[in-house]
């Protein structure tokens, strides 16, 4: 459950989940909605995958992501959104370091 809290405590990841509510999207389509680098987006996708909140499916060269959230997880995300919950900066730095190494 801690991985779920970590995943939904970041506004970018919450936005990704909100976009996926409408329909499954490729990594490229999702990245278009954010002003961040590709490696940073990859870290966000990895965190969401590890928390089992999204499902990744490879089609040729692109990866299509679709939502995989339980009702409770969606409700928790709603609370996080309402209270504008944010991840601690050092947690984020750790993720980026892990990904770059």
């Amino acid at each position, binding site marked *: 459950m801690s991985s779920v809290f970590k995943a939904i405590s970041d506004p970018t990841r919450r936005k990704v989940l909100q976009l996926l*509510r*409408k*329909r*499954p999207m490729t990594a490229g389509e999702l990245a278009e909605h954010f002003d961040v680098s590709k490696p940073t987006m990859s870290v966000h996708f990895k965190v969401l995958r590890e928390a*089992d909140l999204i*499902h990744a499916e490879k089609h040729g060269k692109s990866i299509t992501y*679709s*939502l*995989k*959230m*339980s*009702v*409770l997880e*969606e409700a928790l995300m709603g609370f996080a959104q309402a209270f504008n919950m944010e991840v601690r900066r050092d947690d984020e730095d750790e993720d980026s370091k892990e990904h770059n190494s």
Partner: protein
Amino acid sequence: MNARLDPITLRKIALYILIVLGVLFGAVAWSQRPEAALLWLTGMLTLPVAWALVAITGALPGPEKPDARRHIYNSLVGAGLLVTGALIVTAAAALETIPEDWSTRFGMLVPALVLIVMGNVLPKKIEPGCSRTRGLAIQRLLGWTFVVTGLVALVIGLTLPIAYAKTAGLLVYAIAVLFAVIAVVRIRSRGVIG
């Protein structure tokens, strides 16, 4: 003493405890009110039968699939909780330690709880071979409908006087079914939800 139990072992222990408690309270309920205990005792018998079938048919996944193993144990523990809970309530009502209507209330709470648990995980299921966009929309709609209906039925079962609770509970289920059918038909005709 410092060895930690893995989740599967914990579930196994929980299942054994539930079976023992079920048999114990089932015996008490049987001695006081056999007709009320019979149904739930039969339900309790299905647990070892289900366990034996899982073992005999080889349906229990190996240690290399811990998630699948955990799901099977979760189902068995969930079923054990429901049946043992019913036997405890039946025994307690027969011994007049709780009001008589709680036996009926428990019968109303069980489907509500099952609905909540099922509805919660429904949107997480990945169904291969169907349109993911439409499938996800229908799964999310049904998931939320199940959970909200279950919660409302749970509150009704716990708070309303039993005479009203039965009618109100049925009404809630009827409204939920109607809502779900209309919404699924609309999703199927439109394709996608926002």
